[in-house]
């Protein structure tokens, strides 16, 4: 029996009469690699916003490592190890890659409270930021302002910023969005290479990547969890085929 790293219980959210999340139950075992799939508008990003506290749920509870975090602010959740990335690059355009990641490390170590010592005096923080960038092959461009980085590098920097917070649970909102197909496999290899201590939930549309990198898959439709199972179970589930996957599933089943 592995421990549950993140658990979502009876989560509900609606905007007026529009229900975006209904009675969602999730249990992510520690170290698992979960894929969250579903058609456009299924509420995938909304679910990540709810879990990370960027949206307040109408009902339900979010439990991280056995502690109820439903009432915490987003940054407090990050400090407890619940970290996300964004579908659209949400970076610091004029900061260099190294400055951005150093900032994120300094936020974690609380060095940001200091205003009387130079950043360059925080050697441990800088080293750690540099190592994170090295693990994602970004050191060659680490002194370039973020806005000058190639798009794929910016996607990697998103992950680097998340890693700087030392996540226990990492929620990746379409990490390969907008990245050419041949590069997105590279990006997922970087994700697959993350420590097994980190529990990962990722949204991805490319079924090939989902089946290659996920140990379990959740299918979300209309704000509800339709199926929660292994990739094999999902591929053979008639309900999933009917509602969402259709032809794409056929391809995988044959391939």
């Amino acid at each position, binding site marked *: 029996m592995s421990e549950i790293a993140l658990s979502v219980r009876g989560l509900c959210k609606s905007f007026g009469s529009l229900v975006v999340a209904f009675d969602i139950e999730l249990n992510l075992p520690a170290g698992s690699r979960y894929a969250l799939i579903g058609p456009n508008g299924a509420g995938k990003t909304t679910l990540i916003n709810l879990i990370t506290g960027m949206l307040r749920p109408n009902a339900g509870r979010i439990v991280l490592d056995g502690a109820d975090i439903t009432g915490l602010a987003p940054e407090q959740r990050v400090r407890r190890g619940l970290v996300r990335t964004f579908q659209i690059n949400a970076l610091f355009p004029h900061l260099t890659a190294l400055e951005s990641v150093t900032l994120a490390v300094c936020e974690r170590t609380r060095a940001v409270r200091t205003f009387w010592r130079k*950043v360059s005096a925080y050697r441990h923080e800088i080293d750690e930021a540099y190592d994170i960038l090295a693990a994602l092959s970004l050191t060659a461009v680490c002194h370039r302002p973020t806005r000058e980085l190639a798009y794929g590098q910016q996607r990697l920097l998103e992950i680097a910023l998340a890693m700087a917070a030392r996540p226990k649970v990492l929620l990746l909102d379409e990490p390969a969005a907008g990245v050419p197909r041949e590069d997105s496999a590279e990006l997922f290899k970087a994700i697959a290479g993350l420590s097994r201590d980190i529990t990962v939930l990722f949204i991805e549309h490319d079924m090939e990547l989902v089946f290659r990198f996920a140990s379990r898959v959740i299918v979300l439709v209309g704000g509800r969890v339709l199926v929660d199972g292994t990739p094999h179970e999902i591929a053979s589930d008639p309900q999933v085929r009917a509602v969402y996957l259709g032809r794409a599933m056929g391809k995988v089943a044959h391939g």
Partner: protein
Amino acid sequence: MISDSGQLTEETVPQESRTSEAHDYLQAQSRWRWPEIVFWLATLLPFVLVPSYLVLAAQIAITALFALSLDLILGFCGIVSLGHAAFFGIGAYTAGLLSKWGFGEPLSGLVMAALAAGVFGYATSFIIARFRHLALIMLTLGLALLLQEIANSASWLTGGSDGLQGVHTWPIFGRFRFDLYGYTAYTYSLALLFIVFLFARRLIHSPFGLALRGIRENAVRMPAIGASTREHIRTVYTIAAAVAGIAGALLTQTTETVSLEVLGFQRSADVLVMLILGGTGRLYGGLIGAAVYMIARDQFSGLNPQYWYFWIGLILIAVVMMLPNGILGGLSLLLRRRETP
């Protein structure tokens, strides 16, 4: 905890050369550059070139300090304030009242003024940190207007519209008297401008300064890296308020009078104009903007005392249209072109 980890870093300097290049690079970011040295040397020129203008020079140094404090919140944090004179005024009245009640020692007057303005800044920062953009402009404006009217109605304390009478500043260190020619006033104001500037420069190169730049760049992203944006904003707003308070106290001490105008909308608007004129987010922008603005005002009002705002308007339009990052933005563009042809 912070100083503990700070101690640790100095004792165990990493040996690896792979990150030393990164350290060097970040170290170089905060190094002094030659235009900065030229700038500070140039601030000494009035003593030799235009000794009859030292009174104006002192006013410029004080206003530059005020603009610097606005740059900390506007330039580095994106907080647009149209009521920054509130803190300037609190500092001015604190120093004035202390002196009127018989304590005219200038340096402790500055400390008290910084404290008073800082306390008011901290108290209002809880409101400020919750809002952005237009709402902020209105909130800061509203707070300053409230304060001015309170000062106006409390004429038993502030002298109301007649101004505060009976302010007398003791000699600095008990030795240097404030003279009619502004020699002491300029030396004193310039020294304080430089000291506070050093502090601000250190601040923006600190981890806290990096966080401020993060807020300016992408405030929405900050919570996702575990940052409490509001806490950062409260801190910098308090610091900026205290600095504005020092500027206000300097004005009181060097002119030995306080009028309601120190809290006025005009002062808040002027300092915003100066900062935008000079260029925001560069520390020197406010300093250069204050100098250009006040020298222009002095010259134009000499030409025609009634219509000098016409020229200020013209300069403002020209600068904003042609130099979107202010005078300093234009200058640094020129320098970069020369360095990399």
